[in-house]
C-alpha cells in the first residue's frame, strides 16, 4: 500500500519536474528568439499549473505520512519529495521571472548577442535534468556530480556580470537593459542552486548522507 503511494508521489513529482524544466527552456527561448507569446505562456499557463501541482503533491505526501507511517528509506523518500517539490515550484517562479524580464527586453535592441546566457541556461537545465534522473534511478553518484557543476554556472554568472558592467560603463544607455539581463542571469544561477539542492536530497535518500553545506568536507 505504501509502495503504491510512493510510486504515485514519484510520478507526480516527475510531472512537476517536466513542467518546471520546460518553463526554464521556454523562458530563455522566448528571450533569445524574441517570442512574446512563449513568455506569456510561461507566465499565464505554466506557472499556475506548477503551483497547483505543488499543493497536490504536498497534500499527498502529508497524507502518506499520516496514513502509512513510512520508515527508513521510505520516510527519507517522502520527506525529500516534499523538499524537491518546493524546489521545483521555485524553479517555476524563477522561470516566470525570466519570462517577465524577457517581455521587457524583447521590444528593445539587444545590448549584445545572447551567447553566454543560453550556454549558462543549458548548463543549469542539464543539471536539473540530471538531478531528476538521479532521483528516478536512485543514482547517488550522478547526484553528487550534479552538485559539483554548480561552480560552472556560478562562474558563467560572474562572467556575464563583468561583461555587462563594461557595457554599462561604455554606454550608460544600456544600463537599464544590462541590469535586466543581469537579473535573468541571476535567476538562472538560482535554478542551478535548486538543482544542486535536489542532487543533495537524492544523495540523502539513497545513502542517508547529508552533503549539504560541505558537510562531508568538514567531517
Amino acid at each position, binding site marked *: *500500500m505504501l509502495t503504491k503511494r510512493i510510486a504515485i508521489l514519484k510520478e507526480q513529482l516527475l510531472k512537476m519536474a517536466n513542467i518546471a524544466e520546460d518553463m526554464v527552456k521556454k523562458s530563455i527561448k522566448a528571450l533569445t528568439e524574441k517570442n512574446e507569446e512563449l513568455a506569456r505562456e510561461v507566465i499565464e499557463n505554466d506557472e499556475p499549473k506548477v503551483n497547483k501541482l505543488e499543493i497536490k503533491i504536498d497534500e499527498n505526501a502529508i*497524507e502518506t505520512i*499520516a496514513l502509512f507511517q513510512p520508515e527508513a528509506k521510505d520516510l527519507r523518500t517522502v520527506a525529500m519529495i516534499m523538499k524537491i517539490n518546493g524546489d521545483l515550484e521555485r524553479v517555476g517562479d524563477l522561470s516566470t521571472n525570466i519570462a517577465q524580464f524577457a517581455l521587457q527586453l524583447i521590444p528593445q535592441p539587444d545590448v549584445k548577442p545572447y551567447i553566454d546566457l543560453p550556454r549558462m541556461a543549458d548548463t543549469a537545465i542539464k543539471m536539473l535534468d540530471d538531478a531528476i534522473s538521479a532521483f528516478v534511478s536512485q543514482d547517488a553518484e550522478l547526484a553528487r556530480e550534479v552538485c559539483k557543476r554548480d561552480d560552472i554556472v556560478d562562474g558563467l554568472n560572474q562572467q556575464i556580470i563583468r561583461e555587462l558592467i563594461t557595457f554599462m560603463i561604455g554606454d550608460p544607455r544600456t544600463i537599464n537593459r544590462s541590469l535586466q539581463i543581469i537579473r535573468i542571469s541571476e535567476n538562472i544561477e538560482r535554478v542551478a542552486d535548486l538543482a544542486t539542492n535536489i542532487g543533495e536530497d537524492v544523495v540523502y535518500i539513497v545513502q542517508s548522507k547529508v552533503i549539504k553545506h560541505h558537510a562531508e568536507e568538514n567531517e
Partner: protein
Amino acid sequence: MVKIEVKDLKLWFGNKKILKEISMSIPEKSVLAIIGPSGCGKSTFLRSLNRMNDFIKGVKIEGKVYLDGKNIYSPDVNVFELRKKVGMVFQKPNPFPKTIYENIAYGLKIHGIKDKKMIQETVEKSLRDANLWNEVKDKLFDNAFSLSGGQQQRLCIARAIAIKPEVILMDEPTSALDPIATKRFENLVEELKKDYTIVIVTHNIQQAARVSQYTAFLYVGELIEFNRTEKIFTAPEDKRTEDYITGKFS
C-alpha cells in the same frame, strides 16, 4: 452507494446507556475503521450491525440500521439470513475444532449446500481469496488448530467469505497476531474491499490509518467524528479526535 445507514442508534445495557444517538452512512465496498478508547462502545456498535447484541441479557436497542435500505431491526427480518449477509471475524481466531477443509465446508452445509463439487470449489476459492490457499493446499485435512495464529485468522476470514456475505465485521482482528501476520492480514483487507463492505474495530490507530477509507471516532458512546480517513488523520475537525489520534489520551 451507501451500504449501511445507521440512524439515531441508541443502546442500553440495563440502565447504562452505551451508545448515544449514533448516525452514519457506510459506503459500499470500502473499509470503515472504528477507533476510540477502551469501553467507548466500539465493539457494541459493531455487534449491533448484525444483531449480535440480541443475545445479551438486559439489552435495549432503539434507532434503525438499514442494510441496503432495509431496517435490520424490523420484526420481519430473519436474523439467520441477516448474519449470512453480514459476516463477522473476531479478536481471537476461533476456528472450529475440525479440519481446515471442514471449517469452511461446515458453514456451507448448514446453509443448505449439498453439492460436493460446489463445496470443494468454494473451499478452494475462499482459501485463495483469503490468501491462505498456498500455505494449506497440501494439508487441507489437518486440524485447523495446527495452523499459526495468523493463518487461523485468515481461515476465519475464508470461512466468513465462503457463504458470500456482503459485509464483513471485524472486531480487533489482528490484536492476537504478530507484526508480519498483521501486515499480511492488512494486505488481505485491502484486497477484500474490492468485493465487500468492511467495518473494522481496532485499537491500533496506525492500522486504522493504513487500511480504511473512512474512520469513525467514538468516545463514551458518542460518535465524535466520522470522515474520510485522510481527513481524520491530517486535519480532524474535533479536538477530541485530534487528542486521541495524537496519543494525548487513550
